[in-house]
């Protein structure tokens, strides 16, 4: 490592997951001297995105320090919050490795697409074109996260894509859910009468107050929808796709979800959702960038040993390699927290499946970024599915990346098997056997299953002065819970400070203005002069060319 880190900070943040990164950014923003360190060589922890060849090497557990007996500290890391049940499958042949370096592929991507015979080596040669999220997130266009990005000016660092369609599984096939007004009217899946019913119902939900649904206080949203005499199709669209619920969702929750969905419509794109380009792993990095811009020290790949307490058992600092670094406060990501801090928490788990396929689930003229809400089937939990193509910057042209997530009931493979079998085919040879729709199903090229810990429980703070353990990922579609937790911890640490006020625009920045503007003017003149010369030269060359 290049030199030692400074040995004194206001705040040390351990782990570069989203919640930790938001807190680091907020603290730097108000002038605190922050060290943000991670034992990983990459940003994002359980929120990171990976290339194809690197994702199979992940293991969520923080390597335990071997020397904890010699150091007087509480060792970082615990086994509760690690990734488990990893299972990788290739559904294509190994392929020929010769001539498959990345350059030839980049030179002629068309050739690769036309030659649809994908092999493992061909995909691995494109490894760096993949940005595979451990836990992909969507953002409601008017949700808390998007508002925070804009109000803090962090939005400058990232680019987004709109989710271009919401899909559902209805009558044994995929259907596009009409969600905007124009969708509803142009949809062939709903009759004119249904269109009116749908618009009316959505309006009722949007304009409602809690009292309006008093009689449904202890009833389900499904019961409410049935009472509205809606058709089965409409109930399906509203319950499973727009409210993203199940038959058990309460009426109050259902209405709230409808509002959340509708309120975010019409701001960007045709659906209420945005996705960050190059993967969800970009988001923690954007907060870290803001933090660095406001002076935080960033150090990845650190040999983080543990938390040092003083003789009165108060927080003192950390051991990093052989160096002790002290700070008045520390924030630790859940996955990095010493066992003693988190042994009372039992995480929930999400079953995750990630797939590379050769075509879209529902092919169309243009490339879509699709959200498919698969209703619960055969007593399984509902599954959220995201399908993304090359326009998102997460996979190469000609391929699709499909993410599945559902609450874990057994193990990821079994939890998702039904859905995988329904949507995909595993080998090209099977195509003609069953006939009918099967032919159009995307072929699976690669599958990757794992189980990821989620902490939906907000109340896990133990009473440890100056030590703040923050949550890992949760199962919310957006980042709302993480923002809430980050803000909560920030306000506990610095009660009188503003949380992520707007960062200045470049035009507003004044740099050590002791020199007069004179210099600036001279330079600007020089620049203008040079531009002019350049232009003149261009004209001359052009004239010469013309003459020639």
């Amino acid at each position, binding site marked *: *490592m*290049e030199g030692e*880190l400074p040995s004194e900070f206001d705040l040390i943040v351990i782990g570069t997951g989203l919640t930790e990164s938001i807190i680091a950014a907020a603290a730097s923003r108000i002038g605190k001297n922050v060290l943000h360190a991670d034992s990983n060589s990459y940003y994002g922890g359980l929120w990171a995105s990976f290339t194809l060849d690197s994702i199979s090497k992940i293991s969520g557990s923080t390597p335990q320090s071997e020397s904890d007996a010699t150091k007087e500290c509480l060792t970082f890391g615990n086994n509760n919050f690690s990734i488990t049940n990893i299972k990788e499958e290739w559904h294509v042949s190994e392929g020929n490795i010769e001539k498959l370096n990345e350059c030839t592929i*980049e030179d002629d991507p068309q050739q690769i697409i036309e030659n649809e015979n994908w092999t493992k080596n061909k995909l691995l040669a494109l490894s760096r074109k993949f940005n595979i999220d451990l836990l992909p997130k969507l953002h409601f266009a008017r949700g808390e996260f*998007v508002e925070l990005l804009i109000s803090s*000016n962090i*939005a*400058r*660092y*990232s*680019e*987004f*894509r*709109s989710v271009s369609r919401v899909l559902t599984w209805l009558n044994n096939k995929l259907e596009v859910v009409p969600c*905007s*007004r124009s969708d*509803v009217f142009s949809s062939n899946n709903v009759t004119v009468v249904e269109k009116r019913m749908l*618009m009316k119902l*959505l*309006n009722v939900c*949007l304009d409602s107050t809690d009292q309006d649904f008093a009689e449904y206080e202890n009833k389900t949203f499904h019961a409410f929808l049935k009472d509205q005499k809606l058709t089965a199709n409409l109930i399906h669209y509203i319950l499973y796709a727009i409210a993203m619920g199940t038959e058990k969702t309460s009426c109050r929750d259902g209405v709230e979800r409808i509002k959340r969905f*509708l309120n*975010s*419509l*019409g*701001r*960007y794109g045709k659906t209420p959702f945005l996705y960050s*380009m*190059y993967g969800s792993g*970009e988001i923690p*990095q*954007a907060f*870290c*960038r*803001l933090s660095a*811009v*406001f*002076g935080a*020290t*960033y*150090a*990845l790949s650190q040999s983080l040993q543990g938390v040092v307490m003083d003789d009165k058992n108060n927080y003192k600092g950390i051991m990093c390699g052989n160096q002790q670094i002290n700070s008045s406060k520390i924030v630790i990501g859940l996955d990095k927290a010493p066992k003693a801090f988190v042994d009372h928490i039992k995480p929930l788990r999400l079953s995750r499946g990630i797939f590379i396929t050769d075509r879209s689930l529902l092919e169309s003229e243009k490339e879509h970024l699709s959200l498919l809400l698969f209703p619960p089937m055969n007593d399984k939990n509902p599954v959220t599915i995201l399908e993304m193509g*090359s326009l998102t*910057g997460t996979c190469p042209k000609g391929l699709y990346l499909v993410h599945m997530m559902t609450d874990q009931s057994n193990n990821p493979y079994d939890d998702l098997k039904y859905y995988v079998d329904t949507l995909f085919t595993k080998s090209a040879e099977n195509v003609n056997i069953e006939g009918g729709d099967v032919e159009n199903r995307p072929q699976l090229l690669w599958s990757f299953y794992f189980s990821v810990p989620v902490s939906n429980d907000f109340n896990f703070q133990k009473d440890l002065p100056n030590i703040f353990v923050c949550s890992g990922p949760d199962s919310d579609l957006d980042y709302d819970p993480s923002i809430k937790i980050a803000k909560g911890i920030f306000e506990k640490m610095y009660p009188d400070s503003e949380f992520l006020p707007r*960062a*200045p625009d*470049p035009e507003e*920045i004044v*740099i*050590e203005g002791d*020199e007069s503007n004179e*210099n*600036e003017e*001279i*330079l*600007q003149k*020089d*620049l203008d002069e040079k*531009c002019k010369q*350049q232009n003149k030269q261009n004209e001359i060359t052009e004239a010469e060319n013309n003459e020639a």
Partner: protein
Amino acid sequence: MANRTGTAQRPNGQTQGKICQFKLVLLGESAVGKSSLVLRFVKGQFHEYQESTIGAAFLTQTVCLDDTTVKFEIWDTAGQERYHSLAPMYYRGAQAAIVVYDITNQDTFGRAKTWVKELQRQASPNIVIALAGNKQDLANKRMVEFEEAHAYADEHGLLFMETSAKTAMNVNDIFLAIAKKLPKNEQAGAPGGGGQGRRLVDGDTGPKAAGNCCK
């Protein structure tokens, strides 16, 4: 970031031609003078003991070429390179990069080559890369030969200049050379290239949500 093209209006209403906006990132070892080059180019200033620029997400500067106004959005590393912790997100969607080394320090040249390799693997395929051998004013302590760097740049298709943020030598020139080489059409950010996503801005609120769906 997409190459945002627009038409500028002069105060007298006359059309000035295209405006192209490009993201340019600076890369290189700590203390080679990345921030100094930017400050020299953007503000015309030089400080011998430059502190890192607190609070600047990026700085902007505009140059005019023919009928085109090229607006650079110049990103500095914010010190994240110091402990080898520069986030990949930093150079996403960049259309141009200046990789800086210090001509008095051979190690920084080696590190610059690593950055060039990283950019060629990770950044947009058509990114314009310039190599800047900075601190030319200290040529008497030179450890990296001009010819060596020049040959390397030629071999890898990079623009190359030796610069001095202190004397301003070649500072404007290197940015101008980049501006010249950048594609100034709307296809510059074509799919496969870096970024053509949506930037979220305050004013970008569109019609009120309810109106869109339910009226």
